[in-house]
């Protein structure tokens, strides 16, 4: 019995891995694999010639560079805001028992059970009035609304994991509250905070709907690709898709240790 089960189990794991990986390989092949790649029939499953030709052709598409830079700019801002606003709140939840803590935690959780992206629809109207429409800051703000609840919950679980006694010891030795935090807690929490920051970056980098609603001429990469979807050659679309995926794969690799802790805490 056991001898049949084990190979079946391994096969299942392998199939599920292939199910994730193979499509990524195929879009890379479609985007980068040889010049006539897209229109060849039947399609080859290995590259005719890996050429940088498609990639460089893609990068010369009018507006692609500014869009990529815009995406990085927006994501960096979103990352900064999420950490700056979320870390103090996470610390407060972890270290202080205060009236309203549960209400605050619940409010944070509630925003997650809500399609935040569609709030871009009314924001477009107020952004026009405020001069934020079509700006990187405007998009970064709504992306921060998406990422902030994660930042609060994750950093709070990080700080919970750092013994309070360390901080108290630092104070006994003459540190003020702030410098005890800066010299003792922060270095210990730093890897987790970095993971949170990366997660905020990815949330922003990937977001399509709000970015497309709130920009016209200064689009992020996702919004740009969406707007040229119907008129650009398939090859360019595949290259674009692959380029969107590459940073995400690296980021997920970097934060993989924190993913599960993040969601475990968040679901209680």
């Amino acid at each position, binding site marked *: 019995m056991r001898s049949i089960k084990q190979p079946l189990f391994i096969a299942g*794991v392998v199939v*599920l*891995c292939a199910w*994730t990986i193979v*499509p990524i390989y195929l*879009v890379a092949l479609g*985007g980068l694999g040889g010049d006539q790649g*897209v229109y060849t*029939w*039947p399609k080859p*499953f290995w590259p005719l010639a890996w050429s940088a030709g498609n990639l460089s052709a893609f990068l010369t598409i009018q507006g692609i560079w500014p869009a990529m830079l815009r995406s990085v700019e927006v994501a960096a801002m979103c990352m900064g805001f999420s950490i700056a*606003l*979320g870390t*103090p709140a996470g610390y*407060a*939840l972890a270290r*202080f028992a*205060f009236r*309203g803590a549960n209400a*605050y935690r619940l409010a944070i959780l509630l*925003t997650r*059970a*809500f*399609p*935040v*992206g*569609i*709030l871009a*629809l*009314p*924001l477009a*109207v107020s952004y026009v009035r405020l001069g934020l429409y079509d700006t990187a800051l405007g998009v970064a*703000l709504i992306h921060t*609304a998406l990422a*902030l609840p994660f930042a609060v919950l994750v950093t709070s679980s990080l700080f919970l994991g750092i013994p309070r006694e360390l901080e108290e010891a630092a104070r006994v030795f003459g540190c003020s509250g702030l410098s005890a935090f800066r010299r003792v807690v922060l270095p210990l929490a730093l890897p987790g905070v970095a993971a949170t920051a990366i997660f905020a970056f*990815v949330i922003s980098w*990937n*977001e*399509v*709907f709000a970015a*497309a*609603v709130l920009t016209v001429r200064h689009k992020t990469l996702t919004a740009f690709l969406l707007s040229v979807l119907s008129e650009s050659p*398939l090859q360019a*679309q*595949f290259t*674009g*898709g692959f380029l*969107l*995926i590459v940073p*995400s*794969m690296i980021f*997920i*690799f970097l934060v*993989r240790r924190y*993913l*599960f802790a993040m*969601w*475990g805490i*968040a*679901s209680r």
Partner: protein
Amino acid sequence: MRHLRLAPYLLIAPSLAFLFLLFFVPLIQTIALAFQSDAGPSLGKFDQMLGDLDFITAVKNTFGLAVVVVPLQFALALGMAMMLRKLRSGRDLVMWIWTIPLGISDLAAGLVWLSILTERGYLNTVLFHLGLIARPESWLTYETPAALFFAIVIAELWRATAIVFVILVAGVQLVPAEYEEAASVFGATTWQRFLRVTLPLLRPSIQTALILRTVLAFETFAVVLAIGGTTFPVLISQAFIWENQNQDYGTAAAYAVLIMVITLAATLAYLLALRPRAGEPA
């Protein structure tokens, strides 16, 4: 010590102010926009929405996708979480691979599956080599609605199963191994242990996963546009069209209100259906 009592409030104040301005205010604005007209409050924008030629199709498509995709994702993710628990070696690698889609945007996922399912794509190449088709067939047009629907289901399964998987694995890690050991000591089979011990203990994670995933299902936007273009309208893409192409913010807001009401109802339904039973810990 007075400043210490204030400290937590000072620490949460910035985030609270931010969420008030970028969550609560736009939420109220959405409702205001949807019920507004030149002549005061009205349901005119909802009439406009109901009169939209694609409205009924969009409702059907949106619910159809959610109803098919969410249970499949749940079953797949649960299976994957259980497999991961049994895995002895290569656990880290498998875990990374299975969570990669978590970081992939819905637009990229749509483009990935477009490359496979398009007329001269990889699926047709495989079918050709198997002798099932003689020349490139198109699957993603309005002439093949079932194939188009199926294509979007596959793309969604590929992209968004990872989030359910991660939440469930995080939940499994919090379940003490002793409970299952105790069950097997008392003679429970593997299947009984899974149904009677593991699954009930996972209830909070299952609840979170289902709520989150269902909310996201009603937001599915770029996958649909990348694969189906405008031939497969869903509620959120209609909201986008009313906002961006028709510049009718009120009708877009009416769609947004509808989506909010649906997701709210779904969340409440899950909270009720998966609430702790009598005698179970909360």
